[in-house]
């Protein structure tokens, strides 16, 4: 139908340099992809692909030498590096689990009839926009074992707080908690959007049937907020697995290697000049992220369709 007009417009503009070929006459030209494709291809796709090659080399500033799977052997033999893999998984699962639970509870609270709803929504959300490094340094001070505000307050009510960031068994979890503090606002917001989009008729029908608050939550909000749950889980898993700046700002992977994650190992190996090993870490991270996120999001989304 539109063919004739398209042909005419192309004819009148035949002096334009790009109008040479017949296929280029579409009003939606393929070359619109070009600027984005060049930048994305050169600075994202190419590095991602050549990472697989460079991870198999001993690589310094000057040259690289093919050494097969040596870097991966090193990575999985060195206890400090293997534990970073587990730390990454723990960190991602803890942060996304807490964000789902707290985000959902906060969203239910902030969509219910309470005073100062606007204030509460803003105050929960604002940390999302604040610099991660700023948040990290602030909480490093607040979590100081002797002088920090958290342990000072706990000692007032007679609890002796742990050395949040100095005790090897707490450091990783403390950072994860701060991550939740900073990120729960986004989860809450996504859940609020999901809950608000639930048609009011369901709640009215439930009230006629005599349902209480718990029934509403269990049988209406929870199942119908499922797309929001999928988004929150996917987003926070991706973020948690890649997480670097908060950990770097708070513990630098310490004490020892007890809060090292893959992303901080990548940086440390890069700083030390082991580029091949650093890149191998990157490939491991790539595999971990895709192996977890892709099947999970496919599974979660398929279930949604069956409902």
């Amino acid at each position: 139908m539109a063919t004739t007009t398209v042909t005419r417009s192309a004819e009148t503009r035949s002096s334009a340099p790009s109008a040479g070929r017949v296929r280029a006459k579409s009003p939606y030209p393929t070359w619109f992809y070009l600027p984005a494709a060049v930048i994305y291809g050169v600075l994202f796709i190419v590095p991602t692909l050549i990472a697989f090659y460079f991870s198999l080399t001993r690589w310094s500033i000057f040259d690289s030498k093919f050494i097969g799977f040596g870097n991966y052997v090193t990575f999985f033999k060195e206890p400090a590096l293997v534990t970073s893999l587990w730390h990454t998984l723990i960190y991602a699962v803890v942060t996304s689990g807490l964000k789902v639970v707290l985000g959902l509870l906060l969203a239910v609270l902030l969509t219910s009839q309470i005073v100062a709803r606007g204030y509460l929504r803003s105050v929960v959300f604002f940390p999302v926009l604040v610099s991660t490094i700023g948040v990290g340094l602030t909480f490093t001070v607040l979590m100081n074992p002797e002088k920090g505000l958290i342990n000072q307050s706990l000692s007032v009510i007679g609890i002796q707080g742990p050395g949040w960031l100095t005790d090897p068994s707490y450091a990783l979890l403390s950072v994860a908690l701060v991550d939740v503090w900073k990120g729960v606002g986004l989860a809450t917001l996504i859940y609020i959007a999901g809950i608000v989009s639930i048609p009011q008729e369901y709640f009215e029908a439930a009230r006629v049937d005599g349902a209480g608050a718990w029934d509403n939550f269990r049988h209406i909000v929870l199942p119908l907020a499922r797309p929001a749950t999928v988004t929150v889980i996917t987003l926070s898993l991706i973020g948690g697995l890649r997480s670097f700046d908060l950990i770097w700002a708070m513990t630098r992977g310490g004490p020892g290697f007890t809060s090292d994650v893959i992303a901080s190992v990548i940086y440390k190996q890069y700083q030390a000049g082991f580029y091949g090993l650093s890149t191998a870490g990157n490939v491991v991270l790539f595999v971990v992220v895709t192996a977890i996120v892709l099947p999970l999001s496919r599974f979660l989304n398929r279930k949604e369709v069956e409902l």
Partner: protein
Amino acid sequence: MTVLQSRRPRKNLLLSFVAIVLSVIVFLVPFAFVLLTAIKDQQQASLLDFSWPHQFRLVQNFIDVVQARDYMLIIAFINSTILTVASVTLMVVFGAMVAFVLQRRKSRWNGLVNALVLAGLIIPPAVVPTIWVLQKIGLFRTMPGLILVEVAFGLAFVILLFRAFIGTIPRELDEAAIIDGAGPMRLFFRVILPLLKPVIITSVVVQSVFVFNDFTNPLYFLPGDQNATVQLTLYNFSSQYSTQYNLLFMNILLITIPPLIMYLFFNRQIVAGMTAGAIKG
């Protein structure tokens, strides 16, 4: 009687009270701590306690932070502004162009492009190989290099936002413009782009906050004091032996102001951008 009561929603006062108290303790106290420490003198700030300042050194601390290390903060603010403005402009224009063609034209490329967009959201960037590529094209340790890196990493999210929005603009509009003799460039930049204003604002605001707060990419791709962006200035005041906490927190305060302003003015757009896809999944 009871029916009337339950129909008019009553505010739950006890729950509200608990929520407000908890929000103050959990969320406001850390911010108040930053604010109070930022105006203390160095000696009192080093106590790290939550107390009222003996002396108000707001102006003095501000001057000290700005002057530290040869006005590094000023240079960093200029660098961050250039980085944010340039990279967000490019990623929004290029992303919108991709989303436009992707949404309008069904071709064999669509599957591939969609897969690449998804990959951009999920895959963690390979750090050292990116540095290698930047070195090969002569852009490592340069501002244009970092700008292009931010564009490359941010494109996927922008394309996703735009594609959904362009779907709501009727095709008849394109056809009318084409009949009036508009070419692709004119159609896109004069007809379509102005209609995308809401989603442009959303993506500009959200991506500006992301790029401005970015720490990792400047750390890797633009090292060096002269090139510092604001996030890296936070390490100016801590050394191994002593940290000037009052100046550190003044610095944190100063670099929080731009996102705060963004939030005050574009609250609704930020919320819209960040929750996009929450309902559709």
